[in-house]
């Protein structure tokens, strides 16, 4: 089990390798990427900022909770901060488990808790040159961000 806030490209292959174990039958990998639009506005990039020490602690707590609830130690999560372009991975969650149901559920638990609790903020940059902090609690035109 490992988690980190990183400021460089996330190496998906390496995260997958970290959760490999002969007793696992199922691996679920989640990759969150920067989309080219949000609520109908064309996006060119996102600046991720965080409350570093707390984000690191909170992400570690989320992984520990998932590990205990779903009974696997094979969990690796990295969240990237700094400037990302469209298509870049902002968060990668690798979970492996003997059984697929638990692998899916642990993965989903982790991303939902990240969305709810991790002190990370993003400032979207639009094609018209403007930029804006995203407030997921504001009423959205289309729906909640992915």
């Amino acid at each position: 089990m490992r988690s980190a806030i990183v400021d460089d490209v996330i190496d998906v292959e390496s995260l997958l390798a970290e959760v490999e174990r002969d007793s696992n039958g199922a691996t679920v990998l989640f990759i969150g990427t920067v989309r080219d639009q949000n609520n109908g506005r064309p996006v060119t990039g996102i600046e991720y900022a965080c409350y570093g020490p707390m984000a690191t602690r909170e992400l570690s707590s989320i992984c520990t909770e998932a590990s205990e609830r779903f009974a696997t130690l094979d969990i690796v999560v990295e969240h990237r901060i700094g400037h990302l372009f469209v298509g870049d991975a902002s968060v990668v969650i690798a979970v492996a488990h003997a059984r697929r149901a638990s692998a899916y559920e642990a993965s989903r638990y982790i991303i939902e808790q990240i969305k709810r609790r991790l002190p990370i903020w993003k400032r979207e940059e639009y094609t018209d040159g403007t930029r804006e902090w995203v407030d997921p609690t504001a009423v959205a035109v289309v729906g909640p961000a992915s």
Partner: protein
Amino acid sequence: MTVTALLFASYADVLQRESIEITMPNGATVGDVIAHVRAMPGGAMLPPFPLVAVNQAYARPDVVLASGDEVAIIPPVAGG
């Protein structure tokens, strides 16, 4: 006693700073720090009950602070 309020993202923008040293009477709470920050120029843009973490753990407004505490005022999170 003195505590440090931390500001992030849109909250740091409206208050034009990322941290504030605040001298408070003993017994001051999280809520008192919020009230102090909201009375500053630009501070009215903050909600009356923002998410707060004391020393990196989420805390309720009635939590009593100790000298040296780090009080982070957390805008709506948007990780992932």
